[in-house]
């Protein structure tokens, strides 16, 4: 008798636990789906808002015309900002990609050195640096020294932001290359440097390109450091040695202006910027789909 009661109590406890666990499971599933939707909703709202508000100003002329001094002039455009953004980011890439890839190679291939650990840590810190601080730094060492805001200073600030991102993604993608390929190459009597440039880099190139594109996308939208370095301009882009406009700066100045026409143009510029960044991200997806590293083991 007694043992029977104990048994049934046990089984009730067990099934009670089970029911409780199933309930918790259902609540957790619902909560997680809810969180995902909450995370996506702002993105969709922002995108929709930008598209709706940018629609009135969008035209071919908007992309190719220059800004006008008066907010009421016809045929206003943002061509100087588009060109300025691309040229400054291009200049930044020229500096940041070789340095970043080089640093990433060092961090991955000479990881056993104590200095590599220090460098890796420093790189992480730099990657997390507030970009306004980098802006101030470049303002002091370039803008004050040359007595001029310039596209070079802006590009340099963007490069400082890009380097740690490129270095980190390079390091990570090269570390994914199986060591057996390095050994196979070394065993053929190939030097370490050639092994790195011809075998390791080519095997890990998918990740490398991804890192570079993500870094480009990241600095495309940077504003704070450019305020202190490139300053912005309403003139046509001619040279990086003068103050240079960028899409982000144009959005900032037009968006905070008192004129409805300029505010509308800020939305237009925002749409252009978002499309550029999205295009970069989508090309990353296309490049890395299923072949981050081909044929690895």
């Amino acid at each position, binding site marked *: 008798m007694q043992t029977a009661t104990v048994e049934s109590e046990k089984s009730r406890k067990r099934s009670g636990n089970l029911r409780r666990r199933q309930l918790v499971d259902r609540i957790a599933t619902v909560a997680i789906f809810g969180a995902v939707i909450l995370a996506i909703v702002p993105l969709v709202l922002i995108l929709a808002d930008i598209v709706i508000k940018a629609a009135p100003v969008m035209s071919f002329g908007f992309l190719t015309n220059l800004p006008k001094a008066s907010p009421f002039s016809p045929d206003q455009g943002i061509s100087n900002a588009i060109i300025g953004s691309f040229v400054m980011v291009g200049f930044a890439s020229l500096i940041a990609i070789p340095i970043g890839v080089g640093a990433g190679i060092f961090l991955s291939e000479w990881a*056993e050195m104590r200095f590599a650990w220090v460098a890796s840590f420093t790189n992480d810190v730099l990657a997390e640096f507030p970009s306004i601080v980098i802006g101030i730094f470049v303002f002091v060492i370039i803008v004050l020294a040359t007595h001029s805001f310039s596209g070079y200073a802006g590009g340099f600030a963007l490069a400082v932001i890009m380097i740690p991102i490129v270095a980190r993604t390079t390091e990570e993608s090269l570390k994914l290359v199986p060591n057996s390929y390095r050994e*196979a190459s070394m*065993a053929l009597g190939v030097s370490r440097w050639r092994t790195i440039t011809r075998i390791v880099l*080519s095997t890990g190139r998918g990740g490398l390109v991804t890192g570079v594109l993500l870094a480009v996308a990241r600095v495309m939208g940077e504003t704070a450091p450019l305020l202190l370095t490139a300053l912005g301009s309403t003139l046509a882009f001619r040279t990086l040695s003068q103050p240079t406009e960028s899409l982000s700066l144009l959005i900032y100045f037009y968006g905070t202006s008192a004129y409805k026409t300029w505010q509308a143009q800020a939305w237009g510029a925002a749409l252009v910027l978002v499309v550029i960044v999205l295009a970069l991200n989508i090309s990353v997806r296309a490049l890395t789909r299923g072949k981050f590293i081909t*044929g690895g083991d």
Partner: protein
Amino acid sequence: MKLAEMEQTDKGANFENRGAVRPFQTQPKLETRNLKAFFGKTEAIKGISLAIPDRKITAIIGPSGCGKSTFLRCLNRMHELVQRAHTEGEVNLDGANIYGPGVDAVAVRRKIGMVFQKPNPFPTMSIYDNVAAGLKLNGVRNRKRLDEAVERSLKLAFLWEETKDRLKEPGSGLSGGQQQRLCIARALAVEPEVILMDEPCSALDPNATSRIEQMMVELENEYTIVIVTHNMQQAARVADYTAFFYLGQMIEYEETDKLFENPKMELTERYITGKFG
């Protein structure tokens, strides 16, 4: 008898002189003298002296962890690429120490090639480029010379018939056994004098294994081959000489038939009869 006691009784039996153990009369191709290998402070190879004959197949057998792969990697200076690893002692190739001062490890590896346990063709390269990799990476551009080297190496590796019509396809598209023969062709293309094989068949099926064994016997006429294997039947089938390693030491080194039929050491006998391993 316990293993420890056997080691006691075995000691000195085959080591009457301090020179390298040499169960053959000809001039050795490779010779180690008191070779030691370390991982950090751990001594994985505890002073091995043995001579490897020219244009013969020498097998190294022994239980897992006995140091046979480490020993092999010392023979072409691959061991030192491992973090915190180093070697002591000498390895003489045709009488010249490859660990001598001023000797370039990269040049050593060009003369002493290696095939690894797992087939590892370069994933971004075609079959042709894989075979030509060693030459191309060392600056050979001459198309005719590359073509010839690729054809010759693939033929030596018995892979030419299967791949001659698809040399431009990726090497990773081949079967496991073909990939391993591709890796052997790749090693042969740089025309090494010695080929080290680190359990080259352990990832392959019996059919692919037998093709590679056939190829080894063919290659023996031109190359000195050292093969590490945990498969004793394989050693018995292909090797002219066999060394038995245990716990970082060489226990016995003899002509293969003698070693398997009439081992001098009790440890060897217990290992080859499957009593431990």
